[in-house]
């Protein structure tokens, strides 16, 4: 009798799990640890001034998405004034540790975890390349290629191929965010400027003291952009324009970062646009473009791949 009861309970649990698994929103979490190496956290330990700015950038993206989602993408003061100023205030605290983005954007994380995990993996690649460039790792080139290979093992890896960012910026909802919220959009592009502009100066500087000096002008420019967002820009910054040596040496990584930043813009537009009216529709569209155009797993069928150079900025 006891065995029958136990079997019945197990069967009920299995049926319950199968019912949940059949639900369209049943998603694996799939968090993966970063590439473990001696150079981990070199940027945080040796060039904290720059590291803290990147920690602020992490806050900015998540805070924007949560606020766009909760306000329906129409409340201009909520985004341009309140959310943007929250971000600037957080950046001003010079955070020593990257914030927990799930605490910043709990609703967005539930809406589009797959996209967030894609961001997390690409941001980990960003962090790893900074750490390597700043560290005393003797074979930086090999280390960078190793972390790239590790990144590409992930099911959430963005394609290393060059994508047609102009076409990716011509969906029916494209440019909604930048047209409605030009200040926050220019702030986001300023983050992306900082993220890609530091590579060449960091690589060219021979030692830590020189690297510290080399990034100072970029930090000064970045902080000026935060105070006076560059609203005249018509397109996001591209790695090849701001760090041409790095992009020439590691074109796959440059493509990943540019594609990552384009995906950020697409998601901002989807969250802001009335043409994608419901949360379900936004989730569906985010996952559609992610799966069809951005993930490396779509390389065989991706219609957005190009071979020519692009210069927008």
């Amino acid at each position, binding site marked *: 009798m006891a065995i029958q009861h136990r079997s019945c309970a197990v069967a009920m649990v299995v049926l319950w799990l199968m019912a949940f698994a059949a639900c369209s929103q049943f998603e694996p979490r799939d968090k993966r640890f970063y590439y473990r190496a001696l150079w981990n956290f070199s940027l945080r330990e040796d060039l904290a001034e720059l590291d803290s700015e990147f920690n602020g950038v992490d806050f900015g993206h998540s805070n924007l998405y949560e606020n766009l989602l909760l306000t329906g993408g129409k409340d201009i003061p909520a985004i341009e004034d309140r959310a943007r100023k929250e971000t600037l205030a957080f950046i001003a605290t010079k955070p020593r*540790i990257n914030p927990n983005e799930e*605490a910043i954007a709990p609703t967005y994380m539930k809406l589009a975890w797959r996209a967030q995990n894609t961001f997390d993996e690409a941001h980990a690649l960003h962090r790893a390349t900074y750490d390597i460039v700043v560290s005393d790792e003797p074979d930086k080139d090999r280390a960078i290629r190793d972390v790239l290979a590790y990144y590409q093992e992930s099911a959430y890896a963005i394609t290393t191929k060059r994508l047609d960012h102009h076409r990716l910026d011509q969906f029916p909802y494209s440019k909604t965010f930048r047209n409605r919220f030009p200040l926050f959009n220019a702030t986001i592009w300023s983050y992306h400027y900082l993220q890609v502009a530091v590579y060449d100066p960091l690589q060219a500087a021979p030692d830590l003291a020189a690297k510290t000096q080399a990034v100072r002008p970029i930090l000064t420019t970045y902080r000026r952009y935060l105070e006076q967002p560059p609203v005249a820009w018509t397109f996001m910054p591209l790695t090849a324009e701001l760090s041409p040596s790095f992009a020439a040496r590691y074109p796959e990584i440059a493509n990943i970062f540019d594609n990552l930043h384009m995906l950020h813009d697409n998601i901002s537009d989807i969250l802001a646009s009335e043409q994608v009216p419901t949360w379900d529709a936004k989730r569906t569209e985010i996952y559609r473009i992610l799966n069809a155009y951005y993930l490396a797993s779509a390389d065989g069928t991706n219609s957005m791949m190009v071979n020519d150079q692009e210069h927008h900025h």
Partner: protein
Amino acid sequence: MNQVAVRIIRPILVLMLGLWPLSSFALDHDNLDPNRPIGMEDAYAISKGEIGLEGGVRFNDRREGRTRVTFQPQIIYGAFDNTQIEIQGDLMTEPNTLVGAAKSGDLHVGLLYNFNTETLQLPAMALRVEADLPTGVNSKGVDTQVTGILTRSFGRLRAHLNAGYTILGSPQGQERPGTYRAVAAVSYPLGYPSSFRDTLIASIYTRQSDLQGQRNNTGVEIGLRHQLSSRVVLDAGLGTEFYGPTDRAALLGTVGVSVGF
């Protein structure tokens, strides 16, 4: 103290102390593991590939009997996608007076599998299976435990339900052959939008007493997890049992540390 347990624990402590000067990353203060610092957990496993070393000291000031101190060293490893395995070996004072599944020096192995991430429609769900091997003082038989875990967030507040059942491999004297345990808990990140280093946790729990004929141990706990550096999380907790056997806890206290690398 049990010699077998000492042999198990010593290398863990040495390794932890050796790592202490390093600054590191990753054990997320918002990812909640049992006993760090209170007896509840969320439905998420640590990242695949991550290694965590955790340790703590727990004081149980009982209403009858002497205060019991428990040392809680543990290793966690993100072995597979959404799966963590754990090895633990609690050491307790007055080991000869313990009843129930938890015996001082038992080697504890566990596996937590997270089925899904939380979405707008679904809570995060996980299943934990554990076994206590009888390496400890007065320990007989392999005790097994199964726990179901749900996590659901409401804004920044996260709610957690844990429900488990323990089967004793070889109950002795008046020990129950099986006991259930249920915990309801909430966690909340403190400091938004200017700081993200602290998570507050509170729980209420009930569990069947270890001995037959006694009332359920029922209590509340509150704890804090603080991200000290990228890799180090500190924790502290307090609790009390307001219902249960005469030797139930008057005051529970825990301090601990987790290091991820």
